[in-house]
């Protein structure tokens, strides 16, 4: 199955990001999975240290084990390998809102220092510079899952002092903003980027760098963040990808690329 030999020292920042995210997941997690990097991270976790992890996609597929990464949130593999597929109203009513999900994975176009996320517009809502796809499941994923992990590439366009539009409420203006809104869930508790890991400060809820990926400097992180980013008292270094993690991730991505380029692949 191995597509190419893997040299331990060679990996991309994107690979480090996905691998770091995958490590945050536990074998008994019930994950609400988004398309793209979250899906890669969740399936990598399933194929490495968390074989029993439950992956749920908002299309209604519960306990799915796709052999390739889906392009859409409802690719055939998801249903074919799920233990059950429910309707979309049931998914949002009983499973997400019902409080069944331990970890929701979100991405977005912008995130701010209190982990509020924008996936709606860049610029003014009525006259946007860029019209993004919009909310999808994100606002209620952000409020209903026990905790939220965010996975995003880090730069000054994406990590901004204040998002142009709060699609998904993180920690608002910080502190007990979630409790004041009546939310009982933890909200964003981990941000995984291609440079580092951040967690909200336990009191202020402002994001703090808690681990830095190998080869990345504090200066790079500060430069890639739109506000004066703080570092934890004891910042760890993210362990580099293992051969096993890299091999399994690359095989998964190779299988995926091949499958998605085959036109009209037949699943009947």
């Amino acid at each position, binding site marked *: 199955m191995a597509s190419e030999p893997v040299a331990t020292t060679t990996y991309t920042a994107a690979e480090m990001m996905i691998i770091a995210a995958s490590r945050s997941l536990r074998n008994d997690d019930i994950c609400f999975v988004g*398309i*793209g990097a979250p899906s890669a991270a969740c399936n990598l976790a399933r194929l490495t240290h968390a074989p029993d992890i439950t992956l749920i996609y*908002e*299309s*209604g*597929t519960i306990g799915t084990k796709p052999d390739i990464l889906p*392009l*859409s*949130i*409802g*690719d*055939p593999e998801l*249903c*074919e390998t799920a233990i059950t*597929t429910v*309707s*979309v*109203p049931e998914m*949002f*009513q009983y499973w*997400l*809102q019902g409080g069944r999900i331990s970890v929701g994975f979100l991405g977005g176009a912008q995130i701010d220092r209190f982990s*509020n996320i924008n996936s*709606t517009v860049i610029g003014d*809502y009525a006259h*946007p*510079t*860029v*019209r*993004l*796809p*919009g*909310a*999808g*499941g*994100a*606002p*209620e994923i*952000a*409020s*209903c899952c026990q905790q939220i992990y965010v996975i995003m590439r880090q730069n000054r366009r994406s990590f901004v002092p204040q998002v142009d539009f*709060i*699609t*998904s*409420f993180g920690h*608002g203006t910080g502190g007990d*903003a979630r409790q004041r*809104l*009546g*939310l009982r869930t933890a909200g964003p508790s981990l941000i995984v980027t291609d440079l580092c890991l951040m967690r909200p400060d336990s009191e202020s809820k402002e994001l703090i760098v808690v681990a830095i990926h190998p080869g990345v400097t504090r200066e790079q992180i500060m430069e890639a963040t739109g506000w004066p980013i703080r570092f934890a008292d004891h910042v760890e270094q993210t362990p580099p990808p293992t051969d096993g993690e890299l091999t399994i991730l690359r095989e998964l991505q190779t299988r995926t690329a091949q*499958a*998605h*380029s*085959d*036109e*009209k*692949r*037949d*699943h*009947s």
Partner: protein
Amino acid sequence: MTAFLSLPEAIAQYVHDGDTVALEGFTHLISFAAGHEIIRQKKSNLTLVRMTPDLIYDQLIGMGCARKLIFSWGGNPGVGSLHQLRDAVEHSWPRPLELEEHSHAAMAHAYAAGAAGLPCAIFRGYAGSDLVGKHSNIRFIECPFTGERLAAVPAIRPDVGIIHAQRADRKGNILIEGIVGVQKEVVLAATLAVVTVEEITDELHAPSPNAVVLPYWTVSAVVLAPEGARPSYAHGYYGRDNAFYTAWDTIARDRESFLSWMREHVLGDRK
């Protein structure tokens, strides 16, 4: 009770200019054939409802059929933007497009409320989101028992609901399998419902007593439309054409290449 019609007949008979139309299918069983027929028949001023507009709504919008879009996620899944949708919103081309924007949870609840004959749905939603206040269809109530603030959205009740399904029997009973999305809800919520199917068989052959089946008396018209969901897919019949979804990004990015593709692949199909 159920009419068996050709696709042109069904669209001519059931979709009218100015209607609120929902073509559903949550990344599965998307009604491409029906959407293309709407484009060919040059329906206009439609209010289009759909959780995930997808390529078919990009095409309807780019061809000028829509005046308003009620939606919750308007991208090309896993690929990026819907460029015709963006062009309409950002540059009013080919015409302005009014947006009523929701979250998936809101629309899923609103479809369920429509199917359930309720005027609205309540749910735990929109907490702290700037989507609140962007239009008048997100409101809040207090739980009469706990006092908790709950979001409310009006039920979705389209004039016409259109879905694609695996098959119908000769009476018009419909079987839907796999990712069933809001297929049942949109048919039950809509005043009229058109269902295109992969095949019409003597017996429905539902695999279980609890299979997702719509009785014939919930459906206005059944249309035989094999491969009517391509490049989306039909579980048990054919797979999703992910390569086309990726290719669409290039086709739709440019007005001329979009129109040229539509002329060749949709408008040229008949007449």
